[in-house]
């Protein structure tokens, strides 16, 4: 990691006073995992450059992990931290230039507030949001930003550009402000790769950003990225398995401005609300009291169900233990009164294994679930839900892919969520519903959710299956393959 700061002010070597580092000395500082070196590759009265070169100790970096747990993916070991100017560089900067950051300069106090022409270069800065994002972070603070993109691998041209830039900031600024900007914004750029040793980030942010952050147009995004870096349960068994197959874990905090989280809510909130309202209305019309939300995720529908006393037995089931934990937290299960608690059950289950605990429900809801199942596994899903659990009714909602053209920002042909295995047209959805209905003895009614576009239909499509009780005696129908 390398950072240089060049002053071209008159008596440029005053930079040494401000930084408390003598221009003719090479100084080395121990860090938690590595060493920081400070020296001046040039120091003339016209032009003075200080360099901060950080050598990271990769072995110590890994061994020193919080909690002492072994890292689960190779990405923890083969990592850009030794090279890219992200949170480790900021941390080194905070350690090495602590007094300058605090605005302390006992020998030449008048230099602290002196605005000088500065030229800062960080040779390799993570820029996952693209150049634009870098400009939007630094330009409002008065910097002229020059971010040069680099190839991901010059020998593999088809891979295009890397998510790193060679960053040069030019502007007239106090040294202290410049250091504060870097101290806060370098970790923000690093995003998910951001890594801290200490835990008092809020204090640090307030201290370093109090003078300029409130007026920064990107302040919310900055705050979110600076603070919300906690990866949930690093030792999670699932994460290990995903890493094991050399897949890249879904990075939840990339590209989104909101509070992270609800994976299932892939569209703006009103649609999700609308969808839940539609499902609830159908459940009430079906006179359902015992309802299973299969694929309940963090429990948004469960909360609505709990709010209506006519739902006397509510089961939230999900294949993700993590989602169930989230649901338990969000619904404040631990503090729920007994009478409420008795109505709700959370189950770790799967649509690809028969689970007798799901039997006997009035209705099973598959809200935005089927599109997360590989098409080849859909017959198994149908067998589990319609053949084995056999509730009186099944409600299925899924995106209508025809509507995707109405979403700006969704690339043509792209799905609404990276985990979607398919998205159906209205005709495809209807085909599937009819064949499942016929195979398992359910009548099907299709209904749009929310506003219907005259040309491409609704954003979400819904099907309500009701068991044809009169034909229930045809047990053999339940043995159809269903898909």
């Amino acid at each position: 990691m390398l950072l240089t700061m060049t002053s071209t002010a008159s008596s440029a070597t005053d930079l040494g006073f401000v930084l408390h580092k003598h221009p003719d000395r090479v100084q080395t500082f121990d860090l938690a995992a590595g060493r920081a070196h400070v020296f001046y590759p040039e120091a003339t009265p016209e032009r003075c450059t200080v360099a901060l070169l950080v050598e990271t100790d990769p072995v110590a970096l890994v061994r020193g992990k919080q909690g002492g747990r072994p890292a689960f993916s190779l990405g923890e070991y083969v990592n850009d931290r030794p090279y890219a100017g992200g949170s480790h560089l900021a941390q080194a900067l905070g350690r090495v230039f602590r007094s300058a950051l605090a605005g302390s300069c006992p020998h030449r106090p008048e230099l602290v507030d002196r605005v000088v022409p500065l030229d800062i270069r960080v040779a390799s800065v993570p820029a996952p949001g693209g150049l634009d994002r870098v400009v939007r972070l630094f330009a409002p603070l008065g910097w002229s930003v020059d971010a040069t993109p680099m190839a991901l691998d010059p020998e593999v041209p088809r891979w295009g550009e890397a998510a790193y830039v060679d960053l040069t900031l030019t502007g007239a600024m106090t040294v202290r402000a410049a250091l504060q900007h870097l101290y806060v914004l370098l970790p923000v750029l690093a995003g998910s790769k951001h890594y801290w040793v200490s835990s008092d980030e809020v204090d640090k942010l307030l201290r370093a950003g109090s003078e300029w952050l409130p007026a920064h147009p990107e302040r919310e995004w900055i705050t979110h990225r600076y603070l919300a870096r906690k990866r949930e349960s690093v030792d999670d068994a699932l994460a290990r398995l995903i890493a094991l197959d050399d897949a890249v874990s879904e990075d939840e905090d990339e590209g989104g401005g909101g509070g992270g989280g609800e994976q299932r809510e892939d569209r703006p909130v009103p649609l999700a609300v609308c969808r839940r309202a539609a499902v609830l209305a159908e459940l009430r019309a079906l006179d359902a009291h015992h309802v299973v939300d299969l694929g309940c995720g963090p429990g948004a529908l469960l909360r609505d169900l709990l709010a209506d006393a006519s739902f006397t037995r509510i089961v939230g089931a999900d294949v993700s233990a993590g989602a169930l934990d989230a649901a338990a937290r969000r619904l404040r299960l631990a503090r729920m009164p007994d009478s409420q608690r008795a109505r709700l059950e959370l189950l770790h289950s799967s649509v690809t294994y028969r689970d007798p605990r799901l039997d006997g429900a009035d209705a099973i809801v598959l809200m935005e679930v089927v599109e997360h199942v590989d098409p080849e596994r859909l017959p198994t899903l149908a067998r589990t839900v319609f053949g084995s659990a056999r509730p009186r009714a099944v409600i299925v909602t899924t995106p209508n892919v025809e509507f995707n053209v109405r979403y700006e920002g969704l690339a043509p042909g792209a799905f609404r969520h990276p985990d979607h295995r398919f998205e159906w047209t209205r005709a495809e959805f209807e085909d599937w519903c009819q064949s499942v209905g016929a195979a398992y003895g359910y009548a099907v009614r299709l209904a749009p959710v929310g506003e219907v576009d005259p040309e491409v239909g609704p954003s979400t499509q819904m099907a309500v299956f009701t068991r044809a009780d009169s034909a229930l005696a045809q047990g053999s129908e339940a043995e159809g393959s269903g898909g």
Partner: protein
Amino acid sequence: MTDDRVLTLPEVCLVVLIGISGSGKSTFAERVFGEFETVSSDYCRGIVADDVNDQAATPDAFALLHHIVGARLRRGRLTVVDATNVQRDARAQLVALAREHDVLPVAIVLNVPESVARERNRTRADRDFGDHVTRRQHDQLRRSLRGLQREGFRGVHILTTPEQIDTVAIHRERLLNDYRDEHGPFDVIGDVHGCRSELETLLVRLGYEITRDESGRPVDAVHPAGRRAVFVGDLVDRGPDSPGVLRLVMGLTAAGHGFCVPGNHENKLVRALDGRQVQVSHGLAETLEQLAAEGDDFTVTVREWCRGLVSHLVLDDGRLVVAHAGLKEAYHGRASGRVRSFALYGDTTGETDEFGLPVRYPWAGDYRGRAMVLYGHTPTPVPEWVNNTMCLDTGCVFGGHLTALRYPEKEVVQVPAEQVWYESVKPFPTVAEDARRARAGDELDLADVMGARVVQTGHHGRVTVRAENAAGALEVMSRFAIHPRWLPYLPPTMSPVATSTRPDLLEHPDEAFGAYAADGVTEVVCEEKHMGSRGVVLVCRDEAVAATRFGASPGETGALYTRTGRSFFGPDLTEQALARLRAAAESAGLFDGLDTGWLLLDAEVVPWSVKAEGLLREQYAAVGAAARGALPAALDILAAATERGLDVAPLLQRTRERWADAEAYGAAYRRYCWEVDGLTGVQVAPFQVLATEGRASQDKDHLWHLGIADRLVAGDPEFVRPTRRFVVDLASEAARAAGTSWWEDLTAAGGEGMVVKPLANLVRSPKQLVQPGLKVRGREYLRIIYDPDYTMPDNLDRLCQRGLGHKRSLALREYALGLEALERLAAGEPLWRVHEPVFAVLALESEPVDPRL
């Protein structure tokens, strides 16, 4: 009771002791029953209330007592309840408990004079209750005595004197269905329905010699090798000669040459012959007519013989159960009305179909028992295994076949019907219709995989899976993996060699050779480690095999999947890849040569970027790019500082080294990516045959496996990649040195490294399984595993202190689970049995282990 000095009890039953306080129940129980067999209400009071006489604790004490009794009965243990049980209510609860677990309730009454009991209570300090208590109990007991039989007890034994109580002996009688000491071999024969001629043909086909009476009628069948016939019932009705069939089977069972369980048709016949009101339908009329022609004596013999048939048989140490309509596991070896009813009629949903026949519940789909269950009752065109059960009724009387299954060989033997003897009410299903039916055995229960589990393996004992690991695996299996029927195996993790003691290396062949020599292995094979991802190939010879053996949908002929069970490609590309491998296997004559319709191969799929392009770009290349941005710039700055006369020489030197490391790192990962287009550029490198029909191949040496791989390469050299190998005789220093230089050459040319395996394949040391392979990775390759700078002496020193114990243990446990899955697959075991160890491998893979190992 013929002998009042001996009291006979069924081997499994619930014994309810009845007697007033002081009648000597506990003393009696202690004398004649085992330490844990008796559950006493006093003891339960003590457990819940610290006081055996605390009457206020009675409800809790009995709740506990019922729980213990229930658990014991579920496990099939004879259990004795030591409580007064003088009240009808108390006994009714115990009778209900016995019925719930399908064991017989038996009453033993200790009916001593009240004065004796009262005297005993006086001598005991803790029984200071008044005489009125004993008197009340005695009254209740007296009123109870007459009705005990009607309360549901299947045996009531009354002991009246203290002497009798002190001397009577208990004889435990085995249950009527208990034939566990009969070990076969057997020929189990499906529903005959009066098809006497076909039965004779079948018995002859099975190798029996038929004995005939003076009129030439068959009356016995004897197998020269001592095999015995077992009939699943429904000998009678519909067909042309029910009496003839009965005469043969009655003779055969009487002579000890076979066994028979009753079918619903025998059951109904008995009721008809008893003169009870029955509907004379479904071919009963024909039987009654035929019997009438045989005369009364024969008919009476038939009636008594049929009446004496036991509803199901448990044979061969419990490994085989025969019942007419099948039997769920909880009912094996039990006796109750509902067990008999299940055995005769099967499970029904309570509904009737459009032909007026009861809708049958497919109990076999839920069956998870270890015993093989053979049955008939429901005509099916082709006998099929469903979870270790098979229906042998192939509708002979309707013009189908008469079917037998040889046990333990599991070989089906059939003879065709000579004609359609009876028209079925419901059209007899054709084979095509039947194939369209979903395979009941393909359904997996959540209970098959969830929670903390123990998997019994043949090679490594019990392997434990923790609940949280199973939970992680459930999500991966459900969200990402292919259908479990295509996933009969997951490869185990592999341990690296012990860390090298050389100064500049983490891994070196010496440690592998040394470790195997220490385990008594004399020869090893070094196989090149391909620069790709582990892949398992399941390729069927054609769609028909895929459909019958693996339940494939049309168009599917196998799978090509990763170490966590994901498909490498979409359906189209998968089938293209399978077509090429199939063609290669055909041209090598492998299907015929190995006598199999499918091959399960362990392989490597190259390049790595096929699977891990995302990881290579976002992780590996990105790190390289970050280094390329930072290090040359740092070198420039350091050069400028040097020019100014600053002492940065050591820092400059280190930075130069790090830049060289970063470049070497780039070169290392770049070898794993090249552009592919469809299958162009993709190669599959098989290195081991995991299993074929009927055979897991871990006992074949690796040169045999590699020989097969070579034949596949010859069949399609463009798509199938050869695996280089080098055999090392561990006794020879020269051979070890040659093995080492082979590795050095391999890795110097950019190779990833090698895997060293015992040449003989599966090897055990005196203590345990020997590791099936040890990886020895190249120095350059390890840069992309450890760190670009891992070779710096200071880093290497610290990295050498790596703990391998957990990894090795995990590798062995997963290896044993993998072998278990293969053996279950090869033996044709049901899907849930194969899936169990496969799922366990995935669950173990989520244990936290250093991923660099």
